[in-house]
């Protein structure tokens, strides 16, 4: 696993990396934040142990969390992700209200019409497809059944017009998020 990532990383970043250690540094900072949050103690003993274990963990996992070493793309992705979250929460709320309507409807069996539809996504990177598949599962009446790296996604929809909005706006937003 580690050999594979080491071989793949120079080709992927295409010689554009300015600071090769940057992904380790960002991983270290995030891990220190999580450590302080979870321990809640600020004396030298606990902070020292935290820094030692964060350095060890970020040495092993730095390339996994942040594969790109270009600062601009990292900032762009994280900033857009923070903008994406409120929109996703709104979609989750709509999904839940629709599902509550179906659950408590007396003639529920007439309203639902489960089927499986296949859509083609133009996104290719792992993180973008995972985010897209999980977002589909969270939104109105749809669950991702299958996805592969070529962008083929099968979706189980609960009624006829739940799948109309796919891929649509959500794919646009996620493609913008990961710069594809």
């Amino acid at each position, binding site marked *: 696993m580690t050999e594979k990532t080491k071989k793949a990383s120079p080709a992927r970043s295409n010689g554009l990396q300015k600071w090769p250690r940057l992904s380790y540094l960002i991983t270290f900072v995030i891990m220190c934040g999580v450590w302080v*949050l*979870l321990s*809640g103690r600020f004396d030298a003993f606990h902070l020292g142990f935290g820094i030692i274990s964060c350095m060890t963990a970020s040495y092993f996992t730095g390339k996994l969390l942040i594969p790109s070493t270009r600062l601009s793309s990292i900032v762009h992705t994280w900033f857009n992700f923070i903008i994406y979250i409120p929109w996703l929460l709104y979609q*989750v*709320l709509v*999904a*839940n209200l629709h*599902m*509550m309507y*179906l*659950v*408590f409807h007396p003639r*529920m*069996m007439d309203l*639902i*019409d*489960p*089927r*499986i539809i296949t859509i083609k996504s133009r996104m290719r990177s792992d993180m973008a497809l995972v985010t897209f*598949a*999980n977002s589909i*599962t*969270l939104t109105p*009446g749809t*669950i*991702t*059944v*299958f996805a592969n790296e070529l962008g083929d996604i099968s979706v*189980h929809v*609960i009624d006829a017009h739940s799948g109309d909005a796919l891929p649509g706006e959500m794919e646009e937003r996620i493609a913008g998020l990961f710069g594809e």
Partner: protein
Amino acid sequence: MIDIITSILLFLGLFFFLGGSIGIIRFPDFYSRLHPAGKLDSMGVLLSLCALALYTVKSLTMGNFLTAAKIIFIVSFVFITSPTATHAIIDAGMRAGLKHWNKNNNQDKKEEKP
């Protein structure tokens, strides 16, 4: 004031949990039962844990703030794992070859027709 908001959020969360449970019983087959199980539960967790976080920061100290932040952490982890688990279950059903229910091959309606 915070007590009232906390109670409202908790009751809304429990209402979503109730809807999820009723949905699991009422829906016709394996795949459509996963819709309420996966979605309504994550919404219930969001609302009720936000209520708990809000109640914790009623008296604002450092320790209380850290506890509230941990609760928000739990919400974000549930929002990542819940769709993933739903997808894993539905994928297992597909691999085992379970056909999904639809209106045309509904067994009950065929029996009612003649």
